[in-house]
């Protein structure tokens, strides 16, 4: 299974961009599952479900959504395997600039939008610096000049990443993202894999610097996803 982690700032266009990309993957006959981690509420599950794919949601509530995310990666992985998914798209909450959800061996896509301002690439930290792919959205509403400046600022922060300019409304650019996903390597298991960057501090084992995934490495306050959540509304 290819494990795709989608990160980025709030409302950057993560779901919009992935919906178009998943449609291309489905056209190729691939089985895709999607999971959304958020804090209090999300309607992303309804949007992903409209594609006719299995969808799970995890709401972290009073937990740091990032810690909640890492403490559930194993369970999310098994859930997607039960769905017989060939590709799992995991959309993170992306609430804080210190978020660091990228995992070694999993394709990490950071979605960031042109409207967020040219200082944003410098400010966002690990979600951008550790990404394999940076999807830059909302280029349709800013000038060409600003798109070029923004792109350069992204390159300065993460020179390794492939940058794809994407329009979340029309899906333009999503074919390239599909290609990147198909070219990424599948993973057999998530346990034992390592976060690319330590998480911000809180009150579980990951707060004190743990970076290895799996129940055996977890202690303190841990909350697990309830996979029974039905589509809201």
């Amino acid at each position, binding site marked *: 299974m290819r494990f795709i982690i989608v990160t980025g700032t709030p409302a950057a266009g993560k779901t919009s961009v992935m919906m178009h990309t998943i449609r291309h993957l489905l056209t190729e006959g691939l089985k895709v599952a999607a999971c959304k981690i958020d804090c209090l509420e999300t309607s992303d599950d309804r949007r992903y479900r409209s594609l006719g794919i299995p969808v799970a949601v995890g709401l972290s509530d009073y937990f740091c959504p990032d810690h909640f995310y890492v403490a559930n990666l194993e369970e999310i992985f098994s859930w997607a395997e039960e769905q017989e998914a060939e590709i799992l798209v995991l959309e993170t909450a992306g609430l804080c600039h210190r978020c660091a959800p990228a995992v070694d061996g999993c394709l990490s896509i950071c979605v960031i939008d042109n409207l967020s301002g040219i200082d944003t690439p410098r400010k966002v930290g690990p979600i951008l610096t550790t990404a394999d792919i940076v999807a830059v959205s909302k280029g*349709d509403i800013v*000038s*060409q*000049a*600003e*798109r*070029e*400046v923004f792109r350069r600022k992204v390159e300065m922060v993460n020179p390794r990443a492939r940058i794809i300019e994407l329009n979340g409304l029309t899906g333009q650019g999503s*074919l390239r993202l599909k290609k990147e996903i198909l070219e990424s390597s599948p993973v057999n298991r998530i346990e034992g894999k390592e976060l690319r960057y330590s998480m911000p501090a809180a009150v579980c084992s990951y707060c004190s610097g743990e970076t290895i995934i799996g129940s055996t490495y977890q202690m303190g306050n841990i909350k697990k996803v309830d996979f029974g959540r039905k589509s809201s509304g």
Partner: protein
Amino acid sequence: MVKKINILAGQDKSANLEVIEMLEVQAGEILAVVGPTGSGKTQLISDIEQYAAGETPSRRHVLINDLAAGDYDGQLSFRRLVAEVSQNMNFVIDMSVEEFLLMHAQIREIDRPEIVTKEVIKVTNELAGEPVSKQDNITVLSGGQSRALMVADVALISNAPVVLIDEVENAGINRLQAMSFLAGQGKVVIVVTHDPMLSLMADKRIVMKNGGMLKLQETTQEEKTVLKQLIEVDQKLSILRDNIRQGGSINKETLREGELL
């Protein structure tokens, strides 16, 4: 250097082969894309932007200097094939015009950014009705000023070889002058428009229908002559427009005086 772009036919929305099998546009040429809403203008542009190789819904193939996307193998000298100026675009950076242009020029690694910046502001002022000064904050420019600045910047600082002008309305920018300026810089200029003047200004126009390229029409000598008359009518109309803007009223007499009757 991009010398020409070719678009090889794919299919229309009913999966029929397109009538026009090949469309070629050279650097310095202006192509108008015309057709009713929903006829496939946006898909055509998007195919060029994505350097399509049969994978888009239209199944078209785009060639640049006779080479397909795969032939270049990631060694393209430009970052982005198409630079766009459209009605929806705005500047969102809180900076002065001069600071912003300098930053853009530096990022593009242009020698002597101060000189290019001056040149961009000069061209902007030739295209825009109301003057733009280098100290103006870029976010407070009017629609016409912004569009003029975008055109000047695309022509002189951005390196995209193809420039797309999408439905730029007549508010405060000389569009005909903007298009010939871009073409003069050796760009491939593509204009999506419903305006007869802009269509005739182009060297040729592609007519879209049901998602396919239906007809390729070279602008005739007669049309070029008609264009001159249209421009005259437009100038007369703009006198009326200004009259209304300044609180005047219009009657048959003003039309006669303006040689519109």
